[in-house]
């Protein structure tokens, strides 16, 4: 048998009952940044903002910095004016800012200065999440552990940590080179191979590195990852009717296995906003998570607008460009939205049983209108999470997560709660069958898929 590089830390659930999976509360709250504690009873906004369409180059750099300066000042102005009890700003680097690590670090420092001022002047508890771009996919097949892009990425993480990041995150892309192709062809073998073999191997390696960087920079915490490039790609393609919804739903559940690897390497949360697999991570690890839903309509549409909030600790808008609306700039407008959503959740949470009640309405409002929402209900989350921790390798976990998700959907259909088109039902059956047919161990799968996918990825990059 092949040596697995991944560490499997979790074999039980931190949250065992669906009703204990609530917004604002995590078994292991996280203190970070400037006086902020996440998951200790309240939900805070996490605001994420980006440039309008423009060139990023030396010549335009002052304009770039001015944009971030303006966005931070307007976002914090609104947050203070609305009296939020805490806030996280997320700075997602754009590729040129990771290519030039000093650029990303410069923006990091600018944003941190704004937070420090707000903290001093208004006692605003706050933190800065910094998310360099995973730029390791610049050649085909991509090199994950060597080469210039990795060196730049590592330096970017280091310099941002040094420049004032409180939380480090990344949306890593190990395994995506295979997953993209497999997803387009609806090939479940390739999908499981990408999510159960390649991605967890890269995640384990990468998050061990991030853990070391955090250890070297006291106060900086290792946040978490997102299966954005996998599950959100599937969600978007399903949204465009390119892929079946049931496929996207099952991929979502399976993607949690790779995202869990970050926590197995010492990440403490909050996991990334666009990681809709977050509640599974929270159930397993007890760590706080960021989520986004209707609040992210500036960045993408989704069938999980309310249910996504049901179990969040940070509530995010994913990404909004610094463009003008009638009220002001869009980042400030979305800050207001997040602040009011959080206010409502926190108000309800003050009443006995209030958080559970509001959570249940958020869940019920979306749950059976889409397969993608159905796998995000607290019941479904606990079923999927339990299936994951009951098995012993990422490969087995991915299959188990997929099967649990399929079962959730089949139960929904059987109970006539979930209504699927004939085509979706055919796909659900096809996925169900495919999950039955996998070899017992990943070595056999690797051999099976060599001809079809072998040229797409670099074995050494995965310790294979």
């Amino acid at each position: 048998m092949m040596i697995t590089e991944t560490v499997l830390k979790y074999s039980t659930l931190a949250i065992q009952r669906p009703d204990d999976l609530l917004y604002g509360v995590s078994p292991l709250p996280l203190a970070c940044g400037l006086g902020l504690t996440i998951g200790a009873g309240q939900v805070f906004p996490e605001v994420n903002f980006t440039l309008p369409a423009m060139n990023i180059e030396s010549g335009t750099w002052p304009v770039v910095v001015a944009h971030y300066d303006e966005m931070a000042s307007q976002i914090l102005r609104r947050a203070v004016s609305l009296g939020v009890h805490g806030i996280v700003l997320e700075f997602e680097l754009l590729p040129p800012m990771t290519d030039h690590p000093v650029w990303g670090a410069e923006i990091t420092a600018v944003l941190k200065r704004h937070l420090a001022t707000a903290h001093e002047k208004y006692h605003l508890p706050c933190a800065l999440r910094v998310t360099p771009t995973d730029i390791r996919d610049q050649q085909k097949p991509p090199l994950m552990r060597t080469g210039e892009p990795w060196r730049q990425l590592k330096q970017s993480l280091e310099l941002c940590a040094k420049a004032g990041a409180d939380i480090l995150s990344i949306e890593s892309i190990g395994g995506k080179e295979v997953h993209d192709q497999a997803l387009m062809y609806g090939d479940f073998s390739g999908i499981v191979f990408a999510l159960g073999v390649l991605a967890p191997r890269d995640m384990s390696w990468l998050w061990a590195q991030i853990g070391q960087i955090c250890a070297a920079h006291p106060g900086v915490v290792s946040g978490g990852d997102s299966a954005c490039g996998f599950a959100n790609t599937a969600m978007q393609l399903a949204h465009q009717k390119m892929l079946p919804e049931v496929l996207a739903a099952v991929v979502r559940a399976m993607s949690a296995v790779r995202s869990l690897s970050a926590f197995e390497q010492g990440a403490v949360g909050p996991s990334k906003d666009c990681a809709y697999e977050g509640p599974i991570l929270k159930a397993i690890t007890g760590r706080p998570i960021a989520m986004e839903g209707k609040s992210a309509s500036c960045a993408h549409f989704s069938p999980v607008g309310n249910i996504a909030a049901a179990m969040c600790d940070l509530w995010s808008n994913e990404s909004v460009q610094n463009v003008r609306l009638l009220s002001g700039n869009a980042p400030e407008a979305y800050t207001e939205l997040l602040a009011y959503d959080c206010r409502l959740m926190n108000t309800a949470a003050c009443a006995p049983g209030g958080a559970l009640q509001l959570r249940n309405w958020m869940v019920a409002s979306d749950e059976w209108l889409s397969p993608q929402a159905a796998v995000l209900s607290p019941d479904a989350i606990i079923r999927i999470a339990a299936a994951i921790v009951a098995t012993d390798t990422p490969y087995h976990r991915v299959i188990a997560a997929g099967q649990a998700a399929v079962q959730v959907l089949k139960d929904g259909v059987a109970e006539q709660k979930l209504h699927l088109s004939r085509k979706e039902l055919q796909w659900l059956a096809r996925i169900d069958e495919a999950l039955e047919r996998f070899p017992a161990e990943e070595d056999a799968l690797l051999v099976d898929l060599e001809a079809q996918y072998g040229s797409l990825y670099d074995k050494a990059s995965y310790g294979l």
Partner: protein
Amino acid sequence: MALSKELFDAILNGDAKRAHAATETALAEGAEPMQLIADSMVPAMDEVGKLFEAEEYFVPELLLAGRAMKSAMELIKPLLVASGQKMAVRVIIGTVKGDLHDIGKNIVASMLEGSGFEVIDLGADVSPEAFVAAVKERQPHIVCMSALLTVTMPAMKTTIDALSKAGVRTQVKVLLGGAPVTSQYAKEIGADGYSENANGAVGLVKSLLAVA
């Protein structure tokens, strides 16, 4: 006609092996290559397109059909070239400089291929110079470029400008794709068209060429 039905079904069901075999048999039995394309392959891909439009097929079914068609074409192409017959319209495609997001581009490329176009995929992060070189060398009818990041959108303009400067802009139609792009932006930078999704892209290419 029986064999032609076999090829039609094989493509419709995305069965590459069966499509290959059916083509072999048909050619062995003396079928005209052009006839095979016209009577079996194009109607099959048309049907696939209709099923996709009607949301009966998703992208996987579409791509598998395209793959089956391609495996049939592998046998037919050399015969056409030998007999001096003209191949389908040629399309060059790539994501612009700085943009590594190629899944949308890949879907469009496959769908175009499935629709019978010759597609030259330059990959992701393609510099303006590389686009120009490919246009000069491969003489395509269409250049498709996509950008998923708003910050890489300006590279679309740079690329179009480079085509103009190289004197090849008028030889090709330039189409844009990608979430942040708008038809207004496409117009502003002098492109010939824009599609907001992969499905629309194929229609756009066809309408621009007035290919039915």
